[in-house]
C-alpha cells in the first residue's frame, strides 16, 4: 500500500504495520456496526463480537500463505475478514441477506470464505480442532506444504476434542497451528475458576509433546512474528505448535450481554491495551504521525458505511434457498 506520511515516504516496515492497522480498523468498525445493527433489530439471532481481539486474526493472517487453511469459532468475524471476507458480505450475512457470505444460511456464527482458505466458523466449542488437524493431514497427503490454523477460546481447552486433536496432530506430526485466544472468560465465568492450569492452552501442550508459548495477543507484531516462526516450523515438517494469545473482548460474550461480571479495573487496563492503540503507538515510534492513521480510520469508516448501506439494500434470500445445499445434487431429496 502506498501511503504518504508527514515524514514523506514510508519504510516497508511501517507500511506493513499501517496495513495491519488498516485491517484492524476495518474489523473494529464492522463489529461496532454489527452491534448497532443488532440493537436496531436488523441482526437477528445472536452474535459474538471480536472487537478487542483483532490483532490475533490480523497478525496471524499476516503469517499465512493465501492457500493456508483457517478454522474459527462463532466468534469469528475478525478471522473471516482477515482472510479476505468483505465487511459487506459479513454484515449482509448477519442481516440475513442473500448477498451474505453464506447466503444467509450460516449467520454470524458460521462465517466462511472457502475460496480464500477460511474454512468456516463453528459454533460447537472445540469441534473444529480435529477438522483443522484433518485439513493439515490432507495437506501432507497432497504434498502442498499448506498449513492449517485453528483459532479457539480459552474455554475450549476443557473439552475433549481439544485434546484428541492435539494428540493426533502430534503423533502424525501435522502442519497445524493451535491458536488460543485467551480472553479470560468462557461465557460469563472467569476461565480460571473452571480450569486446572493458569494458561489453559499453553500449559496443556506438553501433555501432547508440543511446543507452546503464551504471547501478547493485543500486539499484532508479536502475533505475526510468533505465528511466522510456528508456521515455518510446521511447513518444514516440524509439526504443530500451540500458541496462547492473551487478549480481551470489548463487548460482552454475545448479543446484549453487558459483561457486568468483569471487574472495572480489569476492563480499564485492557481497554488501555486496545490492539489499535498498541499499534498506533508502535507506528508513532516508527515516525508515523496521526495523519495516516486518521486517514486509515476514515477509510475504514467509509468502507463500513458503504458496507452497511449495501447490506441494508440487498435482498433477502429466496424461500427456495431453504432446500438447497443439503446435498451435492440439488435434485436429490431424502426419499423417492
Amino acid at each position, binding site marked *: 500500500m502506498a501511503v504518504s506520511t508527514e515524514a514523506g515516504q514510508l519504510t516497508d516496515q511501517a507500511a506493513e504495520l499501517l496495513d495491519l492497522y488498516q485491517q484492524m480498523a476495518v474489523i473494529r468498525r464492522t463489529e461496532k456496526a454489527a452491534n448497532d445493527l443488532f440493537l436496531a433489530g436488523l441482526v437477528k439471532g445472536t452474535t459474538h463480537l471480536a472487537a478487542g481481539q483483532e490483532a490475533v486474526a490480523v497478525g496471524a493472517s499476516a503469517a499465512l500463505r493465501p492457500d493456508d487453511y483457517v478454522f474459527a469459532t462463532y466468534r469469528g468475524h475478525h478471522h473471516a475478514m482477515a482472510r479476505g471476507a468483505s465487511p459487506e458480505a459479513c454484515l449482509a450475512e448477519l442481516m440475513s441477506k442473500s448477498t451474505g457470505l453464506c447466503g*444467509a*444460511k450460516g449467520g454470524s456464527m458460521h462465517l466462511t470464505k472457502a475460496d480464500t482458505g477460511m474454512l468456516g466458523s463453528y*459454533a460447537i466449542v472445540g469441534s473444529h480442532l480435529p477438522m483443522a488437524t484433518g485439513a493439515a493431514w490432507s495437506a501432507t497427503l497432497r504434498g502442498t506444504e499448506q498449513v492449517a490454523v485453528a483459532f479457539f477460546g480459552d474455554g475450549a481447552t476443557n*473439552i475433549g476434542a481439544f485434546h484428541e486433536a492435539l494428540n493426533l496432530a502430534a503423533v502424525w506430526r501435522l502442519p497445524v497451528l493451535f491458536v488460543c485466544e485467551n480472553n479470560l472468560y468462557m*461465557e*460469563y465465568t472467569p476461565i480460571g475458576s473452571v480450569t486446572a492450569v493458569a494458561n489453559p492452552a499453553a500449559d496443556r501442550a506438553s501433555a501432547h509433546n508440543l511446543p507452546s508459548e503464551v504471547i501478547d495477543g493485543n500486539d499484532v507484531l508479536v502475533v505475526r512474528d510468533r505465528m511466522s516462526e510456528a508456521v515455518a516450523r510446521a511447513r518444514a515438517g516440524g509439526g504443530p505448535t500451540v500458541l496462547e494469545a492473551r487478549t480481551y473482548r470489548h463487548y460482552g460474550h454475545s448479543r446484549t450481554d453487558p459483561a457486568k461480571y468483569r471487574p472495572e479495573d480489569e476492563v480499564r487496563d485492557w481497554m488501555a491495551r486496545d490492539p489499535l492503540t498498541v499499534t498506533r503507538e508502535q507506528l508513532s515510534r516508527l515516525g508515523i504521525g496521526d495523519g495516516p492513521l486518521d486517514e486509515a480510520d476514515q477509510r475504514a469508516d467509509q468502507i463500513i458505511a458503504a458496507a452497511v448501506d449495501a447490506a441494508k439494500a440487498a435482498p433477502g*434470500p429466496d424461500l427456495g434457498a*431453504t432446500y438447497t445445499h443439503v446435498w451435492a445434487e440439488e435434485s436429490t*431429496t431424502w426419499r423417492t
Partner: protein
Amino acid sequence: MADVTYRDAVADGIAREMRRDPTVVCLGEDIGAAEGVFKTTVGLFQEFGPKRVWDTPISEQAIVGAALGAAMTGMRPVAEIMFSDFLACCWDYMANEIPKVRYMTGGQLSAPLVVRTANGGGLGFGAQHSQAVENWTFTVPGLKVVAPSTPADVVGLMASAIRSEDPVVFFEHKGLLATKGPAAPDDHVVPLGEAAVVRDGSDVTLVALASTVPTSLAAADVLAEEGISAEVVDLRCLVPLDMRRVLDSVQRTSRLVIVEENPYQGGWGGTVASIVADEGFELLDAPIRRVAAACVPLPFADVLEAEAIPSADDVVDTVRRLTAY
C-alpha cells in the same frame, strides 16, 4: 395468581425440588452466579449456594458423566446441557451409559438424574443451536423424555422428573421461554406419561409436543372459523408415551395429524403414526398426516427457518386437505 413465564417456571420447578430434597444438586456451564445463559436458573445460586449449584467447565461429557456417577451414589443431580444440540457432545453418556447402567448391572445401579436442555428453533440461532432433538433421545431405551409446553407443566413435570428413579431428559423449548401461563399451584406434580387434551374437538386429532402445542392451538383457532373442530393432544412426554389418549382421541375424530418440530425422517411422529396405523387402523377414515420440519439443517435467516419449521399455516393446510379427503 398472576401469570408466570415458562423461563421462570424452570427455575421455580428446580427450586421447589431443591427445597424438598437436599440430595438435589445442579451442575452446568454458567448456571451459578451467572444464573444461566437462558436465565432458567435464576435465584438458585443465591438461595442454595455453591454446594448445591455448581459451575462447570465446557466439558459436556464430564458434566453428564459426573451426574451419572453422583446419581449412582445417592445424589439426584440436575445437569444442564446449554443447548440440546450439544447433547451430541455427550451422546455416549446419553445413549450408552446413563440409560443402560441399571440394565447391564442386572439392577444393581440406578441413575436418578435429570438432564435439562434448551431445545428447538425459531430464534435464528442457526444450524448448530436450533435443533429439536427429542427424537434423538426417543431412540434410546432407558431414557424418559419430557418436553412441556406450559409454565405449570414445566413445574409439575420437573417435580416428577427429579423424583424419578429413572434418568429423564427434560427439554425446555427456547421459543417458549418468554411465553406466559398460569403459575403452578403448590406441590404441583404432573406424572410422567400422561398426555393432556388441551383442546377438545371432533373432526381431527392434532398430536403435538412442546412448541407445536401452541402451533396446533393456533391452527385449531383458524380451523374453527372454517367449521373444522380440531382436538389438540399435548403429549408432554415421549417416554412414557401416552398412546391411550391418542388412540382415544382418534376413535372420536377418525383423523390424525401429527405436528412435530423435528424433521420428518426419523421424527417421533413416525412412531406415533405407526402405532395408530396398526392398533388404530379401523378407527381411521383418512390417511395419517405428519407436519414436520424439512429434511434440512436449520438455516439462519428467519424467513428460511420459518419455511423449514412447521407453522400454524402448514397445519391448517394439512387439516383442510385431510378433512376434504
